[in-house]
C-alpha cells in the first residue's frame, strides 16, 4: 500500500495542468465553441485516452485518464461535448463492435464530428429496463424499429444513437433484446426535448416510427443486448470518480466562503457549532469518496474490473451528493434557490454545459437525478445484495417464464 503518486504520474499531472492553463477557454457560449474546445482536447491527446491507438485513442493507463479528468475538474475546465459517445457508445463499440463499426464510428466520436445519444429507458421500462418494448423487426438486409424512448441524454444534438430494442418477444425478456447503432437523422426518428424539474432539457423523448437500422449496425449477436448493456452501464464510473470528488471539493469551498459571509445572530454561520458539525461531516464523507476512488483506480490499474463493486461506488456518491446539496441549501437559505438575480458571491462557479453561470439551485435539483439514473439506488442495492452478498433473489413474476 503506497498512496503516493509515482514521479511519472506527478510529471504527467504537471504537464496536463500547464496545458490547461494555456488552452482552457474562459467561457463557452454555444455548441460550436464547445465542439472547438472538444477538438482541442482531442488533439492534445486528452480524449478517448483508454481507447486503442488504431481507432484514434491513446492506449493510456487508467491513472493517466483519471489525472486528466481530475485536473480538468480542478481547473474548472468546461467538459467536452459528446459525453454519451465518449462514455457509453464508444466503449461499447470498442468492446463489442465489429472491425467495420470501429473504423466507421470511433474516430468521429472522438472528434465530435458525430454526436451520440443512448436509447435505453422507456416510459414503462425504467428500473425494469429489460421490460422494454421498442421492437426491431428483421427485414432481411435491415431492421425496422418502432417504439418510444425516454430519458435520452444528448438526444437533441445526436447524429447516432445506441439502441436497445426487442427482437424476439417469444423468449424470456432478458434474452430477446438486441443492441443497435441507429442513425438519428432520418424521417422515422422524432426527437422532442423533455423539460426536467431544473427547467432545462438535458434529456429528450425519442419516437421511432418505421425507423431503419442497417443490419451491419447490429452490435454483438442477436439477443445479446441485455448482457452488452450490463457491461456498458459500468464503463463511465471508475475513471471519473476522482474528478467527481475534486468537483465536490471545489463546490464545498465555495459553500464555506458563503458560510463566512452569511450571518446568524450577528455572527458568521461558519461560527455556528451546529453548522460546523454538518460541514465537518460532509467533508469527511467527501474525502471517504476520494479514498474509494483511489481504491477503484488501483483495481483498474491492475486490469481488474470493479464489476458489481461499481454499484457500491455509484450508490455511495449519488446518495452523498444529495446530502451535500441539502446542506448547501440549509446554509444558503433562499439564496440557494435563486435561478436568476443571483448576487455574484452566491453563484456557484461550475461548468453548466449550457454555458450559463452555475447556480446552487440547479446543482441542488440536479442532485435528485443521480440516485435515479443509470440504475436507481434501489436497483444498486438489489445488485449489491444479490451479486456481492449472495442473498436470495426475491420471488418475481417475470422470473417465472416468457413474456406474453
Amino acid at each position, binding site marked *: *500500500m*503506497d*498512496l*503516493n*503518486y*509515482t514521479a511519472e*504520474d506527478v510529471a504527467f499531472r504537471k504537464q496536463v495542468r500547464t496545458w490547461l492553463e494555456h488552452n482552457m477557454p474562459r467561457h463557452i457560449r454555444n455548441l460550436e465553441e464547445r465542439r472547438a474546445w472538444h477538438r482541442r482536447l482531442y488533439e492534445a491527446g486528452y480524449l478517448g485516452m483508454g481507447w486503442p491507438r488504431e481507432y484514434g485513442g491513446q492506449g493510456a493507463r487508467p*491513472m493517466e485518464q483519471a489525472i486528466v479528468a481530475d485536473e480538468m475538474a480542478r481547473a474548472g475546465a468546461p467538459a467536452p461535448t459528446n459525453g454519451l459517445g465518449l462514455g457509453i457508445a464508444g466503449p461499447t463499440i470498442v468492446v463489442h463492435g465489429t472491425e467495420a463499426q470501429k473504423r466507421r464510428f470511433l474516430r468521429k466520436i472522438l472528434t465530435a464530428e458525430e454526436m451520440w445519444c443512448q436509447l435505453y429507458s422507456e416510459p414503462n421500462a425504467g428500473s425494469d429496463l429489460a421490460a422494454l418494448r421498442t421492437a426491431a423487426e428483421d427485414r432481411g438486409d435491415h431492421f425496422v424499429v418502432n417504439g418510444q424512448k425516454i430519458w435520452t441524454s444528448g438526444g437533441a444534438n445526436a447524429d447516432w444513437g445506441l439502441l436497445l430494442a426487442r427482437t424476439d418477444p417469444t423468449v424470456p425478456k432478458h434474452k430477446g433484446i438486441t443492441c443497435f447503432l441507429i442513425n438519428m437523422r432520418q424521417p422515422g426518428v422524432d426527437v422532442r426535448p423533455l423539460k426536467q424539474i431544473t427547467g432545462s432539457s438535458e434529456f429528450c423523448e425519442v419516437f421511432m416510427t418505421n425507423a431503419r437500422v442497417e443490419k451491419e449496425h447490429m452490435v454483438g449477436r442477436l439477443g445479446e443486448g441485455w448482457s452488452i448493456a450490463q457491461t456498458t452501464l459500468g464503463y463511465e464510473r471508475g475513471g471519473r470518480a476522482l474528478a467527481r470528488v475534486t468537483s465536490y471539493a471545489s463546490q*464545498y469551498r465555495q459553500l*464555506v466562503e458563503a458560510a*463566512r459571509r452569511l450571518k446568524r445572530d450577528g455572527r458568521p454561520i*461558519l*461560527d455556528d*457549532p451546529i453548522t*460546523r*458539525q454538518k*460541514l*465537518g*461531516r460532509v*467533508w*469527511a*464523507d467527501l*474525502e*471517504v469518496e476520494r*479514498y*474509494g476512488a*483511489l*481504491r477503484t*483506480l*488501483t*483495481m483498474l*490499474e*491492475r486490469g481488474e474490473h470493479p464489476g458489481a463493486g461499481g454499484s*457500491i461506488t455509484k*450508490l*455511495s456518491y449519488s446518495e452523498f451528493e444529495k446530502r451535500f446539496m441539502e446542506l448547501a441549501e440549509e446554509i444558503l437559505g433562499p439564496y440557494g434557490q435563486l435561478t436568476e438575480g443571483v448576487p455574484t458571491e452566491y453563484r456557484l462557479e461550475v461548468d453548466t454545459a449550457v454555458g450559463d453561470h452555475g447556480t446552487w439551485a440547479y446543482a441542488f435539483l440536479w442532485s435528485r437525478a443521480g440516485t435515479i439514473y443509470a440504475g436507481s439506488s*434501489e436497483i*444498486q*442495492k*438489489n445488485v*449489491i*445484495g*444479490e451479486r*456481492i*452478498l*449472495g*442473498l*436470495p*433473489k*426475491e*420471488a418475481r413474476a417475470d422470473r417465472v417464464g416468457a413474456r406474453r
Partner: protein
Amino acid sequence: MNFSFSEDQVLLRNSVRAALDQECAAAHVRAMMEDERGYSDALWGEMAKLGWLGLPFPEEQGGAGLGLVELALVLDEMGRAAYPGPYFATVVLGGLGLSLGGSAAQKERWLPAIASGQARASAALLEDGLDWSPSATAATATPAGDGWRLSGVKRFVPWAHVADVVLVPARAPEGLSLFLVDPRGAGVSVTPMVGIDLASRWSELRLADAPVPADALVGPAGGAGPVLEALLRRAAVAASAEMLGAARRCLDMSVAYAKVREQFGQLIGSFQAIRHRCAEMLLEVENSHSAVYYAAWALTAGAEDAAMAASICKSYVSEAARKVCGDAIQVHGGIGFTWEYDLHLYFKRAKSLEPLYGDAAYHRELIVRGVTGA
C-alpha cells in the same frame, strides 16, 4: 499509487484471523467476560510469539518494525473476534505513546518487555469532563525532591488493573507533561468501571499525591502536547480499525442469517427490506475500510493530510459502525437481542470504542478547523 494490501500484509491478516478463529472464538470471549482479570495469559504468550505485541516497535527494541497499516490489520481482526485483553491498551496507548515521546532509556526499559509479553501498559487520556483535548488536562504534577507528586482523577483507563505502567498526562509548573505511573504504586488507586462490553475493561485511576521519580517524566516538562496529540490520532485510527472489524462480523452474521431464516414461507434475505439494509451495511463497511487504511497509511507515511485523515476516519467509522452493528440486531430480530446469541459481543465492542479517542463530534470540529482554517 496503490491502495491495496501487499502480499505480506495479506499473509499477516490471514494468520491473525486463523489464530483468533482458533484461540478466540466466542466461547473464549464469554469465558473472559467472567474472568476476574479478563484475559488469557496463554493467548497473550501466543501473541508475543507471533510477533503481534511488538509489531510497530523498532527491531532493536524487540519489535517487527512495521507500520500502522499492519497494526490496523491486526486490530481489524481483533474487532472481528471481540478479542478480550489489553492488546490495544498495551501496544497502541502505552507502546506507541512511549515510541512517540519516550527517552532511549524508557523505550529500552519498556518496549522489549511489551514485545516479549512480559509487560502490559496503558494511557490515561481522559478525565471527569470527557474533554479529549490534551490542553484540558486538570491533573497536577508538583515537583517534590528529585521527582514529582501527581494528583488528579483519570477515567475510562483501559486495562489499568493489569497494567505495569500507565502514561499519565498532568499539568506541571512548566505546562502539560507526561509521566510513567505504576498503577500499583503508593498514592495510586484503581477502581473498576464496568461498561456494557464486558470483554474490555476500564478503570478509574485516582492519584493522591502519588510520588513518581524524576525519570518517570516522558519528554520535556511542559512539552507533552504534541506527543499526546500524535498519540490520540493513532489511537483514533486504531480504535476505528477495531470498530471496523466488529462491523464486518456483524455484517457477515446478518448476511448468513438472512440466507437461512424463513418467514412468510421465504428466506428473509429475499425481502428488499432486508436485502437493501444489508447492502447499506456493506457500503458502510467498505467506506470504513477506505477511511481506516487511508488514515493508517497517511500517519505512517507522514502525509500532509495525516491529521485530517485520522479525524475523518474516526468520525466516519464511529457512525458507520453504529449503523452497521445496530442494523445487524434489526436484521436478526428477536434472537439478536438475546444474551446467548453472539451478536451483542461485536455490537458492544463497536459501541464501547465509539466515544473514545474523540467521538464523531470532536473530530468533526477538528475537520472543519482544518479545512476552513477557522
